[in-house]
């Protein structure tokens, strides 16, 4: 998102003076030094990270570094094998005996699958219900405006902390987890969907009416699709927050998933394992965000 804005302005500055006939003849952007800068950026990050690791010192209790360094993270990856389903005890992970990268990978894959499934179900259900509800209440402008405040209030609910409430309602099984994730996604998404419909420019409906379309038809075939691009920030926010919600519910009440590993690792003060999980989640977060953005842009590729 931001790099796009960056290149926009850069080309604006150079293309303004020479705007020959067709728009496609834009001056070329400088791309030669790009890989070098990316490498430098990675290097700078690694340097700062490991400098912090050296400066932060060592935990008096476990003897591990308080800020695990890059090497600590790589070396600790096999620890994840202890979290494989049916594995004896996570406590063993601190001793670091008898683990293999393959077993760790298998364990990681299992927990990733569990978490990703929860995330996917929560996101799909939550976004679908939010959009459906927004479409239902938005056909009339007065009703839509009236729901603006409740929609805003929904988003301010302490969503990440509401998992225990769903425990009361549904018990600690999967249903409660899915319901919680769907509800939280709904709360993030609903105000975005309502305001997206509210912001559809009036000329769309005027144009459709001039073509002779009836109001129900205009609403479903013109207003709703025109509002679609406005959902983008909501979808991306839902994905970014969705991971935290999955972690929260797994941390609190589930016996598997990435959040479960985090909770056990914290319980046993396995700083290095926590750092491994941190790195993995940074990657997962980025990957799913980019995938969601790409997918969404594909969905609304008709847009200017």
């Amino acid at each position, binding site marked *: 998102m931001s790099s796009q804005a960056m290149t926009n*302005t850069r080309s604006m500055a150079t293309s303004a003076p020479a705007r020959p006939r067709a728009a496609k003849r834009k001056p070329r952007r400088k791309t030669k030094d790009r890989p070098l800068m990316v490498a430098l950026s990675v290097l700078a990050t690694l340097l700062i990270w490991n400098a912090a690791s050296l400066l932060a010192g060592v935990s008096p209790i476990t003897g591990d570094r308080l800020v695990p360094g890059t090497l600590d993270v790589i070396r600790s990856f096999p620890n994840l094998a202890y979290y494989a389903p049916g594995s004896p005890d996570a406590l063993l992970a601190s001793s670091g005996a008898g683990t293999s990268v393959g077993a760790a990978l298998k364990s990681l894959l299992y927990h990733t699958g569990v978490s990703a499934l929860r995330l996917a179900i929560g996101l799909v259900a939550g976004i679908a219900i939010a959009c459906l509800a927004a479409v239902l209440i938005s056909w009339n402008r007065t009703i839509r405006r009236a729901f603006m405040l409740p929609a805003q209030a929904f988003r301010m609910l302490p969503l990440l902390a509401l998992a225990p409430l769903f425990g009361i309602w549904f018990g600690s099984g999967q249903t409660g987890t899915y319901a919680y994730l769907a509800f939280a996604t709904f709360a993030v998404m609903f105000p975005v969907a309502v305001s997206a419909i509210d912001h559809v420019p009036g000329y769309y409906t005027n144009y459709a009416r001039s073509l002779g379309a009836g109001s129900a038809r205009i609403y479903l075939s013109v207003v709703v699709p025109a509002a679609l691009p406005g959902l983008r920030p909501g979808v991306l926010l839902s994905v970014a927050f969705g991971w935290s919600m999955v972690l929260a519910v797994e941390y609190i009440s589930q016996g598997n998933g990435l959040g479960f590993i985090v909770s056990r690792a914290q319980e046993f003060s396995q700083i290095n394992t926590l750092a491994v999980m941190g790195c993995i989640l940074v990657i997962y977060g980025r990957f799913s965000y980019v995938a969601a953005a790409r997918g969404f842009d594909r969905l609304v590729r008709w847009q200017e």
Partner: protein
Amino acid sequence: MSTTAASAGGTAPGRRALRRASVTGAYAIAGALTVIVAWALLARAVGNPTQLPAPGAVIAAIQANWHTIPAVQYVLFRPLGVAAAVSYTAVNVMVGVALGTVLGIVLGLILARNRLVRELFEGPLLLLTTTPLLILLPFITLWFGTDRIAQSMLVIVFTMTTVTFATKNAAIAVAGHYANYAACLGASAAQTLRDVVFPAALPATIANVRVALALGWGLQAVAELLGGRSGIGRVIEITARQQATTDLFAVVLAMLVVALAVDTAVAGLGAVLTRWKED
């Protein structure tokens, strides 16, 4: 809605804004009432306060629990009321959002103005915006303990990253447009930053502060839930464990009212600060 052409300096816009605000207010009250009625009907249908307490019971519980919540006192062996829990959370959220906003504006402007810094650190910062923030919590507890400031750390980080990129993008988008003009008038780099880039980015900054503020309540509450000493998160955790649903609803509803008030205040402040904005 407002006329764009010459109608400068009149008193009509002020009155019109007031009328618009009262209409919006009426809509809001109607919407809130609808939701409360629906909730009441649903609660009656469920017929079990442990599953879903009625609105009246929850409001009564706010009053009864104002100074201490019995279910919580039973666990903590000390009084913790709705007032204390909500104000603890609210102060942490507001301090966190304020700190994060200042950091975010500074970082965003640095990123926008300095190409080298941007090339080196935009990537890592961008990673932080998509990182599931909850994973930071164990590290925050480990490094900073469970002090108040540590409790607000999630809010600070979230606000900071959100505001950083909103400010940076807006600043870059307007920089090409206005910076040349400012340079022709003889403005220095610092003057351009203060008089041009910062005010031009302000609307986007404020919009994102509001997003951070809304989601900040959840981040703060989860930090309290997973290892805090006070706040609504702590209350949610204890009341949920005891199935004291009415008490849980009471503290959440009280927090929601405070959250809406804070949001309204920030929105109002933003509207005043950006009253120059075109519709």
